[in-house]
């Protein structure tokens, strides 16, 4: 039988091969699905979040960073992996059959540059320059009945360059509301036909659609996180309410920072992972059971980090990393793609995890399932994506 890595490289070279095992079977398509993408900027250390605790090399390669997972980690079935104790929410989702993880996923980036790897991810073509991001192309493909929203302050590269300005609703700070009247009408007319005008019109459209849901959500006391809770936990509830109240928003994007852990990683990620996990649960609660059933949440980062810990109790920029797939419509508790262990032979450049699952394969499979898109549509979203089909 072919080794998986060989399979992937053959697949990447454009040869079409029959799909060989269960994780690669296509799933049933549901055209009314929803995709939420949470992008962790900075390069999450996947091996710290979900650690291969049964691998004997783990403790040796990460003398201080592996102890919490080895001693107190939450085992994920018989996968050999355990979630970091601060990542309890993820273990709970896994045990409820609502979460799968890919330990060696990522992009084709080899630069180990945050900026280049993030651009590569957001453009989604395999190139580091291009005229549009993959979410912009996906939003165009959604057509008029469904929309996409970016819960960010600015328009992320992933959403740039499409047919229209995407809806952008920052989850913090003041909203978009502008007092109506002749001044506003004068401003609209002064900006008409300009790019500033498009953005202004989109602000007004988003305001009517989203602002009321947002205002409502922000007044719920539970939306304010417990003291010390991080940004995501605070905003996830708002995000869930906005989406629940606007069923036509079929695609959502959110980015979180603070994962570039060159030093003191245990302390930083103990907070970061707790926040991320709590936020995922808050999102699930806010969406409600029915919406959760049609929702798929994908969490990923631009790259993983070095397998060995560095001299300052942190890790440096690496290659393969962790991808999480959760939601009520997934295929439940399992590992997606392979994990070849931590021996020197299995590592990329004797330094990082390899990328065994291409990010476009995962996202394309999610879109295929959520929106019942065929291969031709997916090719416009991810041109040149590897011919690897995943069931998610």
């Amino acid at each position, binding site marked *: 039988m072919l080794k998986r890595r060989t399979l992937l490289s053959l697949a990447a070279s454009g040869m079409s091969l029959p799909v060989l095992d269960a994780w690669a079977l296509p799933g049933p398509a549901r055209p009314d699905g929803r995709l939420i993408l949470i992008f962790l900027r900075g390069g999450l250390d996947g091996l710290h979040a979900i650690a291969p605790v049964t691998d004997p090399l783990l403790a040796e390669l990460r003398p201080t960073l592996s102890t919490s997972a080895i001693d107190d980690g939450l085992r994920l079935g018989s996968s050999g992996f355990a979630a970091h104790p601060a990542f309890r929410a993820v273990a709970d989702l896994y045990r409820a059959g609502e979460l799968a993880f890919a330990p060696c996923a990522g992009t084709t980036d080899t630069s180990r540059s945050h900026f280049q790897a993030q651009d590569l991810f957001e453009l989604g073509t395999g190139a580091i320059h291009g005229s549009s991001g993959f979410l912009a192309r996906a939003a165009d493909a959604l057509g008029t009945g469904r929309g996409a929203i970016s819960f960010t302050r600015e328009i992320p590269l992933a959403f740039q360059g499409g047919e229209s300005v995407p809806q952008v609703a920052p989850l913090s700070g003041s909203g978009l509301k502008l007092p109506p009247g*002749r001044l506003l009408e004068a401003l609209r007319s002064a900006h008409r*036909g300009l790019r500033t005008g498009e953005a*202004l019109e989109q602000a007004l459209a988003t305001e009517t659609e989203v602002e009321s849901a947002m205002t409502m959500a922000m007044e719920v006391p539970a939306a304010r996180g417990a003291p010390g809770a991080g940004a995501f936990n605070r905003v996830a509830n708002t995000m869930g309410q906005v989406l629940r109240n606007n069923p036509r928003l079929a695609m959502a994007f959110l980015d979180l920072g603070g994962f570039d852990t060159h*030093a003191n990683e245990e302390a930083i990620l103990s907070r970061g992972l707790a926040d991320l996990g709590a936020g995922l649960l808050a999102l699930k609660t806010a969406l409600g059971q029915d919406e959760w059933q049609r929702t798929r949440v994908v969490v990923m980062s631009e790259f993983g980090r070095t397998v060995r810990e560095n001299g*300052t109790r942190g890790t*440096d920029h690496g290659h393969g990393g962790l991808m999480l797939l959760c939601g009520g419509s997934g295929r439940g508790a399992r590992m997606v793609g392979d994990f070849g262990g931590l021996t020197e032979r299995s590592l990329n450049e004797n330094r990082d995890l390899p990328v065994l699952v291409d990010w476009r394969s995962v996202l394309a499979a999610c879109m295929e399932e959520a929106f019942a898109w065929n291969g031709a549509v997916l090719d416009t979203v991810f041109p040149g994506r590897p011919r690897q089909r995943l069931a998610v």
Partner: protein
Amino acid sequence: MVRLPERCLKLLRVLPLWAVAGALQAMPLDAAMDEATARGMLGRFGFGATPAALAQTMRLTPRQYLQRAFNEPSLLPRKVSDALGSSPIAEPVETVWNRLGPGGYERRGARDAEARKRQQQQERRYLTAAVQARLLTMANSDNPGHEALLAFWLNHFSVYAPKGPVKLVAWDYIQALDRALRADSFEELLRASFFSPAMQVYLDNAQSTAPDSSAARQAARRGKELGINENLARELLELHTLGVGGGYTQHDVQELARIITGAGVSTPLMQERNLARVGAVRMGLFLFDPRRHDYGEKKFLGQVFPAGHGLDEIDRALRLMAQHPATARHVALKLARRFLADEPPESVVAAMTRAYLASGGRISDTLWPLLQAPQFEQSLAQRSKFKEPVDYLLSVARAACGDQPIANALVLSAGVLDMGQAPLMRSTPEGYGSGEADWLSPAAMAKRVRTAMGVAAGRVPLALDAAPGVVDPGMEQGADARRARLQQGMACTLDAHTLEQSIGPLSRATLAAASGLSARERVALLLASPEFMRR
């Protein structure tokens, strides 16, 4: 960490006009500026025109305007300089560091949670004071070109001031780059940034230790493992000098990380006697500690760095990077994107790159080809750059206040933070982008329109005296207290003439939209007009 080369530039939505235009006029570099050029320069290399600034600038040539920007410090109105003199930034950095920095006596003394909280509040005061002092200086400087160039370099060598003890040295960092800017040399700027406690702490190099150094061996005896951290080395190559695609390898990153081991900061716990004995070198709070340095042979960017060298090989590496052709190109492209166009013409970038190399990295020499390019004059006329949030708010403040002092630091810092940009507040080391795609969004437009409406209605007390003490726009103070502070005090007295001088000629669409509006509405329209969004 999100991007460089600035990622907006990856998106070519609009064909640059010069791609289709015919014969173009270049701006005479050594003739006094007419009003339109002066207004354009004050917008592109500054924060907008006021009547006094316009009159002053029209007496200069473009070359003189930039030479002044490099050579002369900023003068501030008395009211503002007095406020800065009584701000926490006026305290000597060594005193602050020895008190509150790592190993500082007050930090060591803070044993219970309450004391630690008080200490953290103190640290935050220095951060807030530095950010606000920077904004006040930009808003009120009589030499806005200097402040615009300094803002560019502070953003190029970006640090995130809220990170740990960087808060305490944020103002020190601003001053270090300010001094280096006056030397008009990229290498001096690179050195100022590298040898600053802020950068050493921000990108973790202060902890990086050669695994076979005496410090690491000593730590190992105590059961503690010390080693290399590549963070600063990577960003030096990728962001500060050669740039992505500049031809360096992962191996170069690792070798540079070895070269710069030992660079860090001093703490009051270190004993002078020991430091002298091991041959440590101090430059302000910067410390080169031979006990952490890797004295082995290295090979960096194709050159052999022989064994046995310490601080001198760091100097050598910095010079090698500063004079590297890829650095020339990287710096030229970034300057062109900020000061010419999101997608600058290749011919101009190439001319700037040559000028950089020919002058050994003089910034002014690198900028002359940009100013002399016909596309520059055209880009001023077309206002082809979308203003970044800080520059937008400062230009609103200047247009509203004319030549009255803008003394309310809180309005400025709360305003720009709400818009997503503030000096030394980019959490990732690539700094903020300067392109339209980085900043033009529905939320940005909504916020700008709201700001313009508030200023026009006199609700924004830009001229309020900086009160004693620092008001933190962050989370600590109650929202009500902040609101009360923002509402008391005074707005600048707006006048239509100042505003029109600041904006310049209006488009037909804007004029048509303005007809039928009240005077106040007209001001709001102008401050949020398409013309005022750009420079």
